[in-house]
């Protein structure tokens, strides 16, 4: 009889321990499965997209910009400057920034000028807000297997490797005579 009672008490003790462990695990699961704040995700994704679309639309109002017939022009960064950069990329070298291109701003090749301007604009916005990012423009030519990076990669804070929680702006494709231009901006915390 005494043995039976003892066994019952032990079972109750075991049940209490199991309940306590289950409660602890529930708490742990609650912490582990906690989602990132909605605002964080929305802001990062929206910010990547809005930054890229604004960059692509930006009009270069530099008085030193010249285009066809050496006339003063106001090219758009995406549509005009990047297209020109892709078409005349073969003439461009970092060591020779004033090589031939149709659009010349501050006397520089369109690829060089685009690279400089994008770096400045991103640094004054995302850089100021302590965001890590990687920006690059790739050219996919029909006769080549590998895409060619024509602008960038412009990186801050070690960039955004795959292992990090990151968002991308989208590809913003541009069809040109030189091939397909794909621009993307990765943003991470």
């Amino acid at each position: 009889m005494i043995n039976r009672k003892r066994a019952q008490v032990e079972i109750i003790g075991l049940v209490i321990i199991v309940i306590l462990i289950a409660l602890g695990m529930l708490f742990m699961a609650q912490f582990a499965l906690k989602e990132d704040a909605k605002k964080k995700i929305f802001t990062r994704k929206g910010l990547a997209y809005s930054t890229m679309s604004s960059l692509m639309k930006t009009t270069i109002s530099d008085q030193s910009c010249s285009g066809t017939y050496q006339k003063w022009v106001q090219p758009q960064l995406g549509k005009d400057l990047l297209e020109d950069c892709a078409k005349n990329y073969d003439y461009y070298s970092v060591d020779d920034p004033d090589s031939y291109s149709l659009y010349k701003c501050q006397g520089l090749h369109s690829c060089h000028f685009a690279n400089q301007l994008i770096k400045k604009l991103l640094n004054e916005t995302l850089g100021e807000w302590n965001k890590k990012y990687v920006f690059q423009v790739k050219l996919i030519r029909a006769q080549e297997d590998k895409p060619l990076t024509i602008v960038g990669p412009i990186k801050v804070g070690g960039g955004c490797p795959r292992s990090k929680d990151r968002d991308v702006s989208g590809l913003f494709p541009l069809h040109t005579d030189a091939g397909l231009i794909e621009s993307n901006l990765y943003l991470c915390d």
Partner: protein
Amino acid sequence: MLRKKNGQARMNETIAIVFIFFVLILFGIMFFYQYQKIAIKEKNEELLGNRAMDTTLKTLFLPELICTKGEAEPEDNCFDLMKLRHAEKTFTAHLNDYYYELFSFAKITVQEIYPGNKTYILYDKEKPPLEDGSSGWTRKEPTYFVVTLKDENNTEEKSNYGFGYINIEVYS
């Protein structure tokens, strides 16, 4: 005598178990209190974050600012500079009777980055200070968004697009 001693030992054992049990319960209550305190703080931060998000969305799609052209779809993430230049006056004139209901206690600024660097303060309503003179708000949640600034007021046939950002700060 032996039975009495045995009974006392059992009594001590029971008291010790009950004591440990209450200590455990006390620890549980303390842990739960701390957890709730943090959870409430996190919830408040989340609510403030959501308000910042709502205010940002409302501002990005405000007809008083967004780029439109006739009946065509409005342009995303774009503010019309012509509208923006006059918005400051409109926002100030109707701050309490219209915009306060939309934005509550917040500050909305548009900063031009390229080609110029002009700042437009569209809306600024801070929480009134407390009776002891200290600040009425404890936390400020800033949200940034990059926007295009469309300028149709130029000699060229096509519109010019500038680069800037909107800074929305909400107070709690």
